[in-house]
């Protein structure tokens, strides 16, 4: 998975995959997820955030700190931070 570019769409796909697995809210399956959406406006709580961090870590192939996500982080922020980690 490493080497792929981190984009908003890739983070959105991960969110949808987790919704498919009943880890994250079902409305994410159909919703349009855009740059400015935040962890909070997507409807995640701290438990959901841990599920997301865990999956991002697997996808990125690098260890992420447990406090990698803040509720005010946008999807674009997340993609940019992951991209910067190379």
């Amino acid at each position, binding site marked *: 998975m490493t080497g792929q570019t981190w984009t908003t769409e890739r983070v959105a796909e991960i969110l949808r995959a987790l919704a498919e697995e*009943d880890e*994250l*809210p*079902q*409305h994410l399956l*159909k*919703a*349009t997820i855009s740059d400015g959406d935040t962890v*909070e*406006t*997507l*409807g*995640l*709580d*701290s*438990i*959901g955030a*841990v*599920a997301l*961090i*865990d999956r991002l870590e697997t996808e990125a192939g690098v260890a992420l700190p*447990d*406090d990698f996500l803040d*509720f005010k982080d946008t999807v674009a922020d997340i993609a940019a931070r992951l991209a910067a980690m190379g």
Partner: protein
Amino acid sequence: MNIVWPEQFHFIGKSRPDSVAVPAADIAGRAAHVAQILRAQGCVPSDRIAMWVSEGENQLAAMFGSWLAGVTFCVLPSFAGRTNTERSQSRVDDVLSVLQPKCLLKTAGTQLPENLAGQVPELDLPTPDTALDPVTPDTLVFDRGEEDIAFIQFTSGSTGGAKGAVVRFGQLQANLQAIADRVNMTAEDCMVSWAPLYHDMGLMAVLLPLSRGAGVVLMETDHFVRRPIAWLEAISRHRGTVTTAPPTALKLLTRRKAKDVDLSSWRYAWIGGEMVFPSVLEAFEAEYGAAGLAKGVLQPTYGMAETVVGISCGEPGTNWLVEDGFASCGPVLDGFEHRIVDEDGTPVGADARGYLHVRGPSVMRGYLGLEQFGPDDWFDTGDIAFETGGRLYLTGRVKDVLKRGGEMFPATVVEAVAEAALELRTGRAAAFSHLRPELGKEEIVLLLESRQWDDDQARMVAGAVARELGLQLDVIRAADGGRLPRTSSGKIMRQRAAALYSEGQI
């Protein structure tokens, strides 16, 4: 109230991730200081005070200092200060108007959330690095009678109004003793806890070891939330023997594995605060077996603030069992009488499901400011259970309360946030739990009556509920057919909606 003090306490937090040891004499000295400033503030026995302090020296000192001064304390619930919205303000106002605290204790230099600031007189506690004269712990005398009120524990009344369970010293001692006896707790034990002290499980996690002189390693709840593996690392490092957590914590740690931990010292864990599914226990046991976690350590536990904390939990070293897909929560604790009845109050037969009622010395006699009941009256837990082979199995709730991560959310509050987000009139939403044993969770479902429905509306509701309540909803949609079931007087029937949802009929 007899406290058996350990030599020292250990605290873990963001500013001290490797834990710091604080002599009990320092905590006792700090408690004596708190008692002094409460008296200087004019507090007299039977007054109530509120606390807004993070888990650490000052929280313990504020609790014991209150008791020394003869004052009843209340650790303010989580939603006090979580957000600064109007709704959060009204819930804080609700708690304060029920509690009517004489003052609010906080650590010097910490900023109160906007919705709490300036509401009642504020008293500053010295910061933890301020040296105070130590006091020999055993010289502290908590001269309180069985009828005196130890603390007020706020719980989510199903109507959404704040309800404060009144816990008296007699009830506290009865429950602590029943739990300590069940698990054979001794001074050799060491409790590791991150559970917040506004929660019954968190408060018990501090008071239970102190009833037997066991060690206490107390972690800031925020530290756990940011770094869940810190909990297992603390058990490993401090050779923790007992701890408590909601099943959600086990799920998080099955997902985010703690590495290089030795859990062989761990002998008992109260797992409760929400529905405990066998799949969650199995996955955690499988994950950490190699790290030394034995079978019979995880113990599904049932209880509530209204009974101080515990009603039933397993016997140490005994494996939990599964019946009908539900995990056993052990035999009911000594001192409790219980019965499982049908809608008419007639006891159901063995193994049959019904409404669980309890009574006994641990059961409170009423909420603060509301009608009190007598010691012979049965307390309706609002939960549905059956009993097989002497063990209790919890299967659902009749009270309209949603649970996630051990936190309770009144359905009415969640519905109100959703209705406001969509500018709907009151009574257009129904929030309820839908059990998903295969996923090991209670799914939270919100159905709405809305003429036009699109995904943007689901997004608006999800964002508003996450922002205002810190709660994630699993399913948000319009009710099929656009109508929710109602009583003849027009009230939403949540349990009926939940049943229809399970059948795919709504």
